């Protein structure tokens, strides 16, 4: 009933060729290019001042966006999964919006509001508050592009888990927060972890949206991806790939956590 042996191996070979070409080769290339000029150049590239400040801004943006989006994700998933109300699909569509919007447009909408020619731009300028081309703009843009990740992981899961367990907890006398921490949270912990990791990876790696709102000012408004771009455009390839390899390693950690989470979730069902 199965495919002939030869067809099967032809298909495996073709699939592996395709996946190897588009996945393995680029992955290997990042690390190979990073180490091309040797370990000393690699280490100095990731420890020079502009790189350090880029790393600091990236970590700051992630450290602010991820918790904010985590709270939003849990709130939104709770509201959507545990209650019935009109307009639910509108809210879900709005949550999915950053996935359909190009990162350039995501950054641009913040320039339209906070930029000098924007809605509240003149007011900000008068009060000497800098948002666009400064750190707050970078953080805002990062929040926008990463906020769906946690919500999208939690909503289907919580919807499929239903209300029964929470209702049972309430009849047994638990308060709202107690119910959440002791009943809901253990049920969603793996999806939550995965959502946080994804959100973090995207927050640290976002390029297009941040590119629009940052001033590309070396040493102050550059994130790691923007710093990589600058180094690459200066033909400083070994340094560019060295800094890029930091993000590539983060990507590999993300993939590893995803496999772990998938395994754990399969174990539990």
């Amino acid at each position: 009933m199965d495919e002939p042996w030869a067809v099967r191996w032809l298909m495996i070979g073709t699939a592996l060729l395709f996946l190897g070409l588009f996945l393995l080769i680029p992955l290997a290339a990042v690390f190979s290019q990073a180490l091309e000029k040797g370990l000393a150049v690699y280490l100095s590239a990731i420890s020079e001042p502009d790189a350090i400040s880029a790393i600091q801004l990236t970590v700051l943006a992630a450290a602010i966006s991820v918790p904010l989006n985590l709270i939003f994700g849990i709130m939104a998933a709770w509201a959507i999964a545990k209650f019935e109300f009109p307009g639910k699909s509108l809210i879900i569509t709005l949550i999915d919006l950053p996935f359909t919007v190009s990162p350039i447009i995501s950054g641009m909408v913040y320039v339209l509001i906070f930029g000098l020619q924007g809605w509240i731009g003149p007011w900000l300028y008068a009060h000497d508050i800098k948002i666009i081309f400064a750190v707050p703009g970078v953080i805002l843009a990062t929040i926008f592009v990463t906020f769906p990740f946690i919500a999208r992981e939690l909503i289907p899961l919580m919807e499929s888990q239903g209300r029964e367990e929470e209702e049972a907890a309430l009849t047994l006398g638990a308060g709202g927060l107690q119910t959440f921490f002791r009943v809901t949270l253990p049920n969603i912990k793996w999806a939550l972890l995965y959502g946080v990791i994804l959100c973090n990876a995207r927050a640290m790696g976002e390029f297009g949206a941040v590119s629009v709102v940052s001033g590309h000012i070396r040493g102050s408004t550059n994130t790691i991806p923007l710093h990589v771009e600058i180094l690459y455009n200066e033909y400083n390839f070994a340094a560019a790939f060295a800094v890029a390899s930091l993000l590539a390693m983060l990507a590999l950690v993300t993939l590893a956590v995803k496999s772990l989470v998938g395994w754990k979730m399969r174990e539990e069902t």
Partner: protein
Amino acid sequence: MKSVIKHNVIPGFGLTLGYTILYLSLIVIIPLSALFFKAATLSWTDFITAVTSPRVVASYRITFGAALAAAVINAIFGLLAAWVLVRYRFPGRKIMDALVDLPFALPTAVAGITLATVYAPNGWIGKWLEPHGIKIAYTPLGILVAMIFIGLPFVVRTVQPVLEAMETEIEEASACLGANRFQTFTRVLFPTILPSVLTGFSLAFARAVGEYGSIIFIAGNMPMVSEITPLLILTKLEQYDYAGATAIASVMLMASFSMLLVINLLQKSSRRYVEY
């Protein structure tokens, strides 16, 4: 409000829904409406001129054309990859399966410089193609390659669950009734997985159309030849042509929304056809 909502003992409705709507308004609704308001400041004729000038139209052709081609390639090879990963056992299967998500996890700028380096004339892959006169980096072909990369996981990940959930009884029944393997595939299996292939195709297409970071390094970024629409929007922004930039952006947004709508309808109709 109370008469609309079913009575529910679970607490926190007001708090969670209120916070959700507040957050969405601040982060999504207000910024996006700024875009449409700004685009509306252009008169109708100016709007049409802005979005139909030759350079802009060339960028649509390049962006949407390459995205379509990339999505088709991803649909074919993604389906193959999903089939092979679900149905067959071979060394390295689990690692390949995990690696499929690499384009999701890898930052776009990193992907961009890596693809540009690998496919450049002296790169690992580029140097094999150079003697045959095939140039990938800095040409529209490079745009295609970058779009294939970032769209790769979509079809694989939407088809895999469907393949995994498929029951073997249907295939066995088909074989009992005399179908050969190819017939079983085209008449029994494929219609079942077609909706998921279409979903993955549309997701890959939508993602490729809006993509920026992975593409600008490997594209030539030459106007009329290899300039993608997001780059054109950014260029206009840098020239302070906000109205022009928002006009093109609204066109892109409307195109993405209608694409997703069409594919949703396609899926609904094929689901009707497939249900038994």
